[in-house]
């Protein structure tokens, strides 16, 4: 589908326009185009040319024989290429009736999938037409739940940012599940992409050389390093700021963690794996992530002992608006931020070199 075609005469659009004008029948045209394509990919022409050159070269002296050998090798190469081309498009090998069926099936599949998607879009738009008007205060989704979060949120959680108060206090278990999803995803990627040292087998050596190629890809680029010297501290400080002010301003653990992770990735790109592993490696990743998740789990498990009501933590809420306020929200934000930053960095290193 994504194949580029330079010749307009045999393009599908041209065929479609001809079909619209009633000049051709699309099925026979498709067959003709297919046969032409098949003729183009056949290796016979190149083979014959090579054979002719070998025939010409045989009644001669040694140098001619060498030429003949090279010509024969070229012919074999061409045949091999053509064979690989045939292998790449196996339906070309089959008899024409079957390949025509396959082509028809393909076109049928495309048309049906487009029709299906059009149907889905139209059903969804039909539903949209019955939805209440956008931005109206009386819409049924602005019900007593959000009113309760807004009116009582500051008193009960102490968080100025109501979204943070909601996701880290009222719905803290939901956020715990999200952090676990991130952790499990990074574990799965680690399992899938890890390069094991299993005694120097062939596949391991091959993957190791590929990974080495990826590790040493950026040579010490002076411009990147100077820019990173300026940018990385700023990015890291900004990420920490977003995490620590999660209950006061827009932001929080997830966004701040993403900023921290991107700063670490920039450092890694500028200075290479050897320097980056001095400050962050697999062991530190494990310790930080597991301890953050354990702290989160323990800090929120007390609600099982207080009648499944999260709101009585015993920690004073403090003055709303201060950094040290709103009870457990700040430590939980830090935990989430650490998990997210570690996971982002882990994704990057795993995809790039297959290990931490």
């Amino acid at each position, binding site marked *: 589908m994504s194949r580029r075609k330079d010749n307009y005469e045999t393009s599908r659009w041209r065929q479609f326009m001809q079909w619209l004008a009633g000049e051709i029948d699309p099925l026979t045209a498709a067959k003709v185009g297919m046969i032409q394509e098949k003729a183009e990919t056949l290796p016979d022409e190149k083979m014959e040319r090579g054979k002719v050159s070998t025939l010409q070269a045989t009644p001669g002296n040694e140098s001619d024989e060498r030429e003949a050998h090279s010509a024969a090798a070229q012919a074999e190469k061409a045949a091999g290429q053509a064979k690989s081309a045939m292998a790449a498009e196996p339906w070309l090998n089959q008899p024409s009736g079957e390949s025509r069926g396959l082509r028809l099936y393909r076109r049928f599949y495309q048309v049906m999938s487009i029709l299906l998607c059009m149907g889905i879009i139209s059903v969804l738009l039909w539903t*949209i*037409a019955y939805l209440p008007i956008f931005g109206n205060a009386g819409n049924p989704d*602005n019900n007593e739940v959000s009113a309760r979060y807004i009116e009582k949120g500051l008193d009960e959680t102490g968080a100025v940012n109501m979204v943070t108060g909601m996701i880290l206090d009222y719905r803290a278990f939901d956020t715990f599940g999200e952090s676990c999803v991130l952790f499990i995803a990074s574990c799965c990627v680690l399992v899938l992409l890890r390069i094991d040292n299993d005694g120097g087998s062939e596949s391991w050596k091959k993957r190791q050389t590929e990974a080495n190629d990826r590790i040493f890809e950026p040579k010490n680029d002076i411009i990147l390093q100077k820019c990173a010297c300026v940018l990385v501290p700023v990015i890291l400080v900004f990420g920490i700021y977003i995490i620590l002010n999660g209950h006061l301003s827009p932001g929080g653990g997830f966004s701040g963690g993403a900023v921290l992770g991107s700063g670490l990735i920039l450092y890694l790109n500028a200075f290479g794996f050897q320097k980056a592993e001095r400050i962050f490696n697999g062991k530190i990743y494990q310790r930080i992530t597991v301890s953050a998740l354990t702290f989160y789990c323990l800090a929120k498990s007390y609600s099982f002992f207080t009648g499944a009501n999260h709101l009585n933590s015993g920690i004073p809420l403090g003055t709303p608006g201060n950094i040290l306020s709103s009870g457990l929200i700040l430590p939980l934000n830090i935990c989430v931020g650490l998990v997210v930053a570690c996971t982002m960095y882990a994704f990057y290193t795993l995809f790039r070199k297959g290990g931490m």
Partner: protein
Amino acid sequence: MASHLLYNIEETVAMILFGIGFTMLLLHRNLIRKIMGMNIMDTAVYLFLAAKGYIKGRMVPIVTDGILDASAYMNPVPSGLVLTGIVVSVSTTALMLALTIRLYERYHSLDLDQILIQVKKEEGS
């Protein structure tokens, strides 16, 4: 009816984006493009949720000047849902890309049809 589509232009765009992503999932045979289609579908869902939480003429749900009135702020619930969705989408995208890398290492192709043909051949032999 049709005028509602114009009033709800954000939701309309979200649904069309969702359809485009679904079409990419069905039509493209390249696995990376299928993943792109999934991400477009994710984005459409975020757009829909964020549009549902917006209320005209109200502030973002961060307490300012000590106002604690429900009629002064937007709905904070969809924002939390979008946050959840983004995290899950990042995780699933990373997982799918890792699986794609393993498939490419095994079959040396990103084309789903080629991979299936090779799997059938291996099963047959």
